[in-house]
């Protein structure tokens, strides 16, 4: 856990440096970094089976359910709909297979209704996903639920086209 945190911090600093660089030197993308080259080599040499949910490479494989990490909900509801159950099951399989995996379930609501009630609703949605992940083999200590209510919308227009994107639980891996 400490190592993961340290890694995150290091990455955060690296991110900050690269973000700064972007601001000052807009022409940097002409020279690809060697790091990108090696990752390309790995993915082309051995493509993972998209249904192998114990293979961490599938997090970046658009063919695999592991690449999908957002579950959407109906208005004022917290049941995980049938269409998202397979995504949650895939993550349950991965988390069960990786003892180092740590996941934060970030629950969100759309803007309708009051902010504090929506904090409760976001948590209830996070708990729903938490329950399914646990049923699928994830251990309690690997899972954490945080509700942001309506405070972190993906989309800021007041209509259903936007609201459905905001009623969600994001499955965030803090360690894999």
């Amino acid at each position, binding site marked *: 856990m400490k190592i993961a945190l340290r890694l*995150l911090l290091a990455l*955060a600093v690296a991110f900050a440096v690269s973000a700064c660089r972007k601001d000052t030197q807009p022409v940097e993308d002409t020279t690809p970094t060697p790091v990108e080259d090696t990752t390309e080599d790995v993915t082309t040499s051995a493509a993972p089976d998209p249904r192998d949910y114990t293979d961490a490479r599938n997090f970046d494989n658009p063919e695999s359910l592991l690449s999908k*990490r957002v579950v959407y909900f109906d208005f004022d509801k917290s049941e995980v709909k049938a269409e998202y159950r397979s995504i949650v099951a895939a993550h349950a399989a991965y988390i069960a297979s990786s003892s180092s995996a740590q996941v934060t379930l970030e629950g969100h609501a759309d803007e*309708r*209704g009051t902010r504090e009630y929506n*904090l409760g609703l976001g948590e209830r949605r996070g708990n729903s996903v938490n329950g399914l992940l646990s049923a699928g083999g994830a251990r309690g200590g690997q899972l954490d639920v945080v509700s*942001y209510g309506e405070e972190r919308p993906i989309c800021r227009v*007041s209509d259903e086209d936007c609201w459905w994107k905001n009623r969600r639980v994001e499955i965030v891996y803090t360690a894999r």
Partner: protein
Amino acid sequence: MTVTDTMKRLLLALLFITGASAAQARLEIEIVQGNAAQLPIAVVPFQWRAAGQPPITGVASVVSDDLYRSGLFAPMDEKDMVDRPVDAESIKFGTWRLLKTDYIVIGQVNDSPSGSGFDIVYQMFDVHTQERLLSQITSVGPGDLRFGAHRVADAIYEKLTGVPGAFATRIAYVSATGEGDSLQYELVVADADGFNPITVVGSPEPLLSPSWSPDGEKLAYVSFEQGNSAIYVQEVATGARELVSSGKGINGAPAFSPDGTKIALTLSRTGNPEIYVRDLRTNDTRQLTQHWAIDTEPTWSPDGRTIYFTSDRGGRPQIYQVPASGGTAERVTREGDYNARASVAPDGRSIAIANGRGNEYRIAVWELDHGRLRILTPGVLDESPSFAPNGSMILYATREGSRGVLSAVSADGNVRQRIILSEGDVREPAWSPVIR
């Protein structure tokens, strides 16, 4: 993508800044719906008899602006005043009757005999009967002339409406400026007329639910600066703050008890949100509700005996009440699909709520005595009602396009004000108690 998001948040959390810096943006207030029967009143510019330079905006014009914004008065424009009497003997009542004003206020500003600050000396007369209705001296500190003017407006308002004024008060609100990663949240405290805004807390993470202590000196609020919700209590003047609650799950909806010794709050440490009461002296925390539903948004009755809260235990959110000392919860609101976030009127006889029907949310008042719902605002995404300490107005959050703005509506629904901050998305208003 989500992992980089987490990193960005971590990074932003590292850059978290707190402290008092003056906000650039100021609130502008305008009447969008007025009362038909406004009292005509002339507040004659007060004579400046103090040693230093007079302020650019005089005391009388601050008083006039306050009275105008209440929606109950039609103050005379300064340039229409043909005469500027300073003492009672020089008021030509006939002239003021011709100008169709009912009341005249005259006054002067003197240096305080104590050597620091000012004495605002003023009188109000009924133009028709020539009766003197008010004759007072308001003493203020050297930097508080505007505040003194608000107190003059409070006295005039009380004399003519029978209700104490609420101009010498403050409002707290949350503003969000910027986009995406540069989004910055600020908890701001300003005078009730939008002047003197002070940023109490700034954070790249969400801030919400400010609640005033009954003495107006502290604010409790929710901050996500540590990644999860946490409750802080902060002194407005010094910025000194204390972490009150940051346990697992939700730490939300703080509300000071009327005597200031306790805080009601929402915690989900048992797995779902319940209402708790914490004694701020002993830190003893007692659970008040126990239900699988979402129980949140506690608020106290003025006598401190009852806590009103939002619960969806009946299927959809409604207001319930429970004795503050513990006991059985009872449903309060019985009309409408969605009723949440109660603010109790200072007389304890009604609650203002966010009332939802379909996709439309309006501010409504539920009369506790009669069990009657009155819708006060046009919607469509109105929330966070907060009663003025005199019960005359209800401050609330609404939307203009995709931007959050504040509005205020009179408790009878007849007067509505739009309160515009020059930039940013504004929400979560809380009206302070009367400041002594």
